[in-house]
């Protein structure tokens, strides 16, 4: 007869369960990886500088300040210190010519020279003195004489903003689409994934163009209200016709009403009065309009169509949009278009993850303790997806930035003069030539873009490690 092993006795004697108490209890210590911290620092520095200066660069329009005489100047810290002859001497002569006349005169006087002689000095103390007065641009200027530093900052703000927002949209759509598809399973899953397959089959540029064009048309209508005004006009014609005939007009009758003289229609005067009262009601300026004063609107018009058009222009006026607002709308369209087409991979990855998680025993255990459907989804499924979501989000941000650059290059994306890192790099590439490299126009945007993308990847890796409880025990 075996003595039963009394578990509760065993607990009382800790010597019996040394292995069970050996594991480190409590929350795993959060370890930050060095690369993650470095990446985050770089990202915060670049992103903070670009985004924080947006009001200064884009808000005040400084990114587009042009000075033709300063075109294609290199960064000031690369200016030559002197040259005897050759191409460099030409450069120095050009820079000397950019020195303000007063400074030139002062320097020339100090060295007992005429200003013309001073201008052509390409070395020595005269040139050194003039050199101090050369225009100074930290990162040089582009072919229109705009400061590359300001354009890089503005472009960075726009690129990062679009990248982050588009990635956020794509991650949101992708996560929920993929997770719901896998969670629903069966026919729903099949249909939802076939939709993704079809979208995958279409070239994404086509989709982006379609979305951008459709959105553009929508914005145009919102601003001009042409259709709304036409609608108002048609309603007016119908009202005039119905007052006489008691039925709506057909096409020929509508044209006849439009062409008919103004005087015939008492109803037209009523419409004019109604509109005049509405106008007056908005600001209560001047005397309240009467039928007589309203009819003055109709005086100068020859036909009913013209009269109605005049009233329609007041009833449905076009909206005035600040240029900044129009710009913001264009950018929103762009990021919605990019975000709206780049969630497909995300959806597939998340679906795969959910399918494997769904089969995990802990999901079954959750069902077995009576966890409701929605709670299983939000509490047990989504937190297990954080790793995949973070990794793909950090991959999607650079991808979105690259797509934005590509679209800008094609002329669909950010419209000039608004800069983005992509357009700046494209411009810089165009400025490269065998005689003069203008290297700064290509190097700085690319350097910023590359550093940012690398930093994003480091941050993503660091986040994944920090968020994954399974890695905490190292």
């Amino acid at each position, binding site marked *: *007869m*075996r003595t*039963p*092993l*009394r*578990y*509760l006795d*065993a*607990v009382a004697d*800790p010597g019996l*369960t040394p*292995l*069970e*108490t050996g*594991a*480190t*209890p*409590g*929350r*795993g210590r959060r370890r930050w990886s060095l690369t993650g911290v470095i990446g985050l620092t770089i990202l915060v520095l670049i992103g903070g500088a670009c985004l924080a200066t947006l009001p200064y660069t884009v808000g005040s329009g400084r990114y587009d300040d042009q000075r033709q005489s300063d075109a294609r100047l290199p960064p000031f810290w690369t200016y030559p210190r002197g040259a005897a002859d050759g191409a460099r001497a030409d450069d120095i002569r050009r820079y000397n010519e950019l020195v303000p006349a007063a400074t030139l005169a002062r320097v020339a006087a100090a060295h007992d020279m005429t200003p013309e002689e001073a201008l052509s000095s390409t070395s020595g103390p005269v040139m050194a003195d003039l050199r101090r007065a050369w225009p100074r641009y930290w990162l040089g200027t582009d072919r229109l004489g705009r400061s590359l530093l300001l354009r890089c900052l503005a472009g960075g703000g726009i690129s990062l903003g679009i990248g982050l927002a588009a990635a956020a949209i794509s991650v949101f759509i992708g996560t929920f689409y993929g997770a719901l598809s896998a969670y629903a399973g*069966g026919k729903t899953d099949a249909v939802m994934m076939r939709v993704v397959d079809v979208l995958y089959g279409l070239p994404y540029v086509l989709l982006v163009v379609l979305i951008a064009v459709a959105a553009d048309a929508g914005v145009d209508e919102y601003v001009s209200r042409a259709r709304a005004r036409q609608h108002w006009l048609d309603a007016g014609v119908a009202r005039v016709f119905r007052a006489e005939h008691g039925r709506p007009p057909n096409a020929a009758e509508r044209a006849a009403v439009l062409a008919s003289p103004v005087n015939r229609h008492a109803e037209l005067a009523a419409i004019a009065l109604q509109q005049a009262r509405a106008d007056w009601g908005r600001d209560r300026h001047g005397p309240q309009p009467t039928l007589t004063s309203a009819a003055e609107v109709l005086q100068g018009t020859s036909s009913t169509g013209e009269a109605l058009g005049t009233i329609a222009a007041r009833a449905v006026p076009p909206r005035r949009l600040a240029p900044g607002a129009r710009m913001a709308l264009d950018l929103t369209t762009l990021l919605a278009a990019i975000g709206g087409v780049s969630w497909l991979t995300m959806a597939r990855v998340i679906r795969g993850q959910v399918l494997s998680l769904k089969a*995990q*025993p*802990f999901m*079954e*255990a*959750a*069902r*077995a*303790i*009576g*966890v*409701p*459907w929605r709670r299983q989804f939000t*509490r*047990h499924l989504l*937190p*297990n997806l*954080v790793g995949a979501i973070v990794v793909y989000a950090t991959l999607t941000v650079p991808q979105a930035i690259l797509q934005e650059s590509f679209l800008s290059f094609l002329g669909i994306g950010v419209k000039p003069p608004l800069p983005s890192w992509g357009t700046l790099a494209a411009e810089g590439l165009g400025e490269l030539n065998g005689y003069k490299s203008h290297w700064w126009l290509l190097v700085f945007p690319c350097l910023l873009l590359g550093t940012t993308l690398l930093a994003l990847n480091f941050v993503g890796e660091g986040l994944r490690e920090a968020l994954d*409880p*399974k890695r*905490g*025990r190292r």
Partner: protein
Amino acid sequence: MTIAAPTAATAAAPVATRPLMRVQDLAVSFDNGAGPRIQAVDGVRMSIYPRQTLAVVGESGCGKSVTAMSALQLVPRPPGRVDRGRVLFRTKADPDRDVDLLSLTDRQMRDIRGNEIAMIFQEPMTSLNPVYTVGDQIMEAILLHQQVSPAYAREIALTAMRDVGIPEPERRITGYPHQFSGGMRQRVMIAMALACQPSLLLADEPTTALDVTIQAQILELLRELQRTRDMGIMLITHALGVVAENADVVCVMYAGRVVEYATVLELFDNPLHPYTRGLLASIPRIGTRKDRLVTIRDVVESPEEFTRLPGAAEGVRPWWPWHQPPADLARRTGPAGDFDLREVTPGHWVGLWRTAAVREQESRAPDLDYRREAPA
């Protein structure tokens, strides 16, 4: 494997006159794509009383888990489908009336799951969500079913962890599953299952993934908890040693049918179905030297094994899916029309071919209000 001195069924004092759960003629099938549906479980009958351990034994795929999962409506549908049957359960809320678990809505079922019937699974390594602390997971079960504050739920969780023998629960409650060993994780699963004081525990191979020492501890723990809480346990296993040590009543399944149902002593002393005999004969005995072990096939392939039942002369034959059905099969409609679980000797049920001789006999559903004596 030692079995204590035989105790009569009458020795154990009856705790309740009505079973806690009765499975009646359960049939579950699964969609098999283009092929015919797979009949996972067919004509299953069994019953569990409070404070009773019913061991369900059988090889992989014989329908043990599907039976337990059906009781909680956890069989994925589709591809699964309940073809027939009822699972009657005595709820805590209304002990006088049995409810059919298979007819409950999803919302009603959620109130049963975890609260009235709890389940623990085979893989303690993966049955816990890796992103939450074990405390969160135990408390979730409590907060879902009881109107208590989170602070009070934490107290319950701590008590449950203490009850299942997790040392220093105040410290371990904030630990993540990966910080626990396999045995400790299974204890967490049990604590989760017990936190709401269920009246029935479905233990689906709770010790298969654990080594024998931990296995003994966990089973002893379950027995202890069963005694203090009047809980019925359905112990799904394929370890006959575990059955002999823990079970009150044993239900042997094969190919989706219950082939034998009896008290543990009766079953081990007097197995009636050839499959059960093969199962018992195939266990190697320590201390005996053999060149070749007996297999189940050795037993079930000898025809005389199938002619030993009382009434064999009249045509009472144990059911066996690989045999040609007897000529005088009294079919009835339904997939399991050729099969019947019959009380062959008092308190001993065997799965039989439904021949004319079988049909004429009277038989009651398997129902044994028996518990063996608590070990001293």
